[in-house]
């Protein structure tokens, strides 16, 4: 194992707005550090307003006002180059986009241009990277589609002629046609029905294994993480609170928030009562002092209200931001 593909260090990204004379600052991502190795699927979990969407926007350098990056860095080590995402100009970013770094977005209607055929999407996104004349390029695309068990005829379809699941498969093919080093997948199965969801996840898994790319896979659905990811990071209120191997986290979560999330997961064949959690995720314009989970935390003490626990290693490869982590359970 070589260098990590992605190194995120002390990243802070806030939304700063000023409307009708009122200044607001939403601390969507606060001091997040993580690394992602080559050939792994890293899961990022969190509820709405946990900051996970902002974090991947920042990783992708898709920053638009009012979002601002206030500190930290995002560095990729691709096969052929090293890129500090917030330290290079747009031309450099455009050069790596799709060749080294691609995206799969939520499988809604609108990811593909509604007025153009699928073929044009492949040409627009991938043609410049493949470096072959058009007929050969299209042959490459067809071959890639076939490898993913998609009929090459989809190239002549308009997006609205495809079902939701088919559109999502097409975007996965689009995202992988250039064999990128790194893929950002943002809730790619959220809008899909369960049967389709399963086959799409299988497709992502298969192509990842074949290409050896790394994927950061974002979803709020813990069951998806359990089935797909190698490592898992849990975000709460703009901060990473726990990170470790997926199997370890599900077996023995150490942060009280993670512990609750996993304990409350409904399972088929299990009707034992599950406990709910009081309160609500905090407003990130006025986050609570100290640990942002402390108002809802059953284990919180005075100290948690005063200071935020830093991410600390409890076991090899398992980090938790909590002064009073859940006791370790043996397997």
């Amino acid at each position, binding site marked *: 194992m070589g260098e990590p593909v992605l190194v995120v260090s002390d990243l802070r990204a806030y939304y700063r707005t000023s*409307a*009708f004379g*009122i200044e607001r600052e939403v601390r969507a991502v606060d001091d997040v550090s993580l690394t992602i190795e080559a050939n792994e699927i890293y899961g990022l979990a969190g509820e709405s307003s946990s900051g996970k969407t902002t974090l991947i926007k920042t990783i992708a350098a898709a920053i638009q006002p009012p979002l601002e990056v206030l500190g930290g860095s995002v560095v990729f080590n691709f096969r052929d180059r090293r890129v500090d995402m917030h330290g290079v100009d747009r031309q450099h970013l455009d050069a790596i986009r799709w060749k080294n770094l691609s995206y799969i977005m939520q499988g809604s209607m609108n990811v593909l241009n509604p007025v153009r055929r699928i073929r044009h999407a492949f040409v627009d996104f991938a043609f410049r990277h493949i470096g072959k004349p058009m007929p050969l390029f299209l042959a490459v695309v067809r071959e890639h589609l076939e490898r993913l068990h998609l009929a090459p005829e989809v190239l002549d379809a308009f997006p609205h002629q495809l079902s939701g699941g088919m559109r999502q498969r097409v975007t996965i093919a689009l995202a992988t046609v250039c064999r990128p080093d790194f893929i950002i997948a943002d809730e790619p199965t959220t809008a899909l029905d369960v049967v389709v969801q399963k086959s799409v996840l299988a497709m992502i898994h298969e192509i990842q294994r074949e290409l050896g790319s790394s994927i950061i896979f974002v979803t709020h659905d813990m069951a998806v993480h359990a089935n797909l990811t190698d490592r898992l990071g849990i975000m709460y209120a703009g901060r990473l609170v726990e990170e470790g191997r997926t199997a370890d986290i599900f077996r023995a979560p150490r942060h009280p928030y993670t512990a609750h999330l996993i304990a409350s997961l409904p399972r088929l064949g299990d009707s034992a009562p599950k406990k709910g959690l009081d309160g609500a995720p905090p407003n990130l314009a006025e986050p609570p002092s100290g640990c942002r989970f402390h108002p809802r935390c059953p284990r919180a003490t005075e100290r948690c209200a005063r200071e935020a626990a830093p991410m600390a290693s409890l076991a090899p490869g398992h980090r938790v931001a909590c002064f009073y982590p859940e006791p370790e359970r043996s397997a």
Partner: protein
Amino acid sequence: MWRTLRDLLRFNRQFAAGIVLLGIVAAFSCLSFFSPYPPNDSFVVPPDVPPSWAYPMGTTSRGQDLFWLLSFAIRNTLLFGMVVAILSRALALVIGLVAGYSGGLVDRALMSINDTFIVIPLFPILVLFYFVMRDHMSWGLLALMMACLGWAYDARLIRSVALSLRTREFTQTGIFSGMSTRQILVEEHLPYVLPILFSTTMNNINWSIGLEVTLSVLGFTDINTPTIGVLIYWANQHTALVAGIWWWLFFPVLLVVMTFIGLFLLAVSMNEHIDPRSRLGRS
């Protein structure tokens, strides 16, 4: 409501500029109540006097003090615009809300008729109307006619808002809370329609004043009631431009252009304000 206005004035330059422009125009029109001369009297002052301290806007070839005459004219013009706007708003609101809230066949039928009124060129019809009425033409009649023809575009806007409101879940919550249809339309939906209603009112006043000025300039209205258009009509009749009496045209045009831009700025700034979420973001 008042807070909204205050915030708009403080933070929206377009809105503030529109209010200032319209304020000047409105204040000027109020001066007509203090006019020393009745509006239709001619040759009460020496004709063709350029703007001076005695006659701030000069006098016309017909011996009228343009300053006072213009105050009457702008008052009538504004009044005309408001009458058309209010009458056509009633039509647009009823048709838009009914079409949107009923949906289905009612909606489709109403919108077909609606689109027809959008497409039909109104100017030839208004000219035809004048042609038939001739000396019986009055601005009241014209206002009525224009209100009957000028509701369609705005009805479509209101309908699209009503249509989306109908499918919102809170409408169902209202129904299952036992609220009556009237209560839902008035209390739940109207707050969303009001900003649109306001901005379309401004646009509609603009539209009707524009058409009135145009018809008057051609002499296709009652040319004995002073409006901005009628003023320009008489100036043209006396070839004021060729005769070098520029002020006779300059001040009416200046005033009416101020009105147009003022109303338009209000409509535009209101449009920006329509998204109710931006309003909630501040509280």
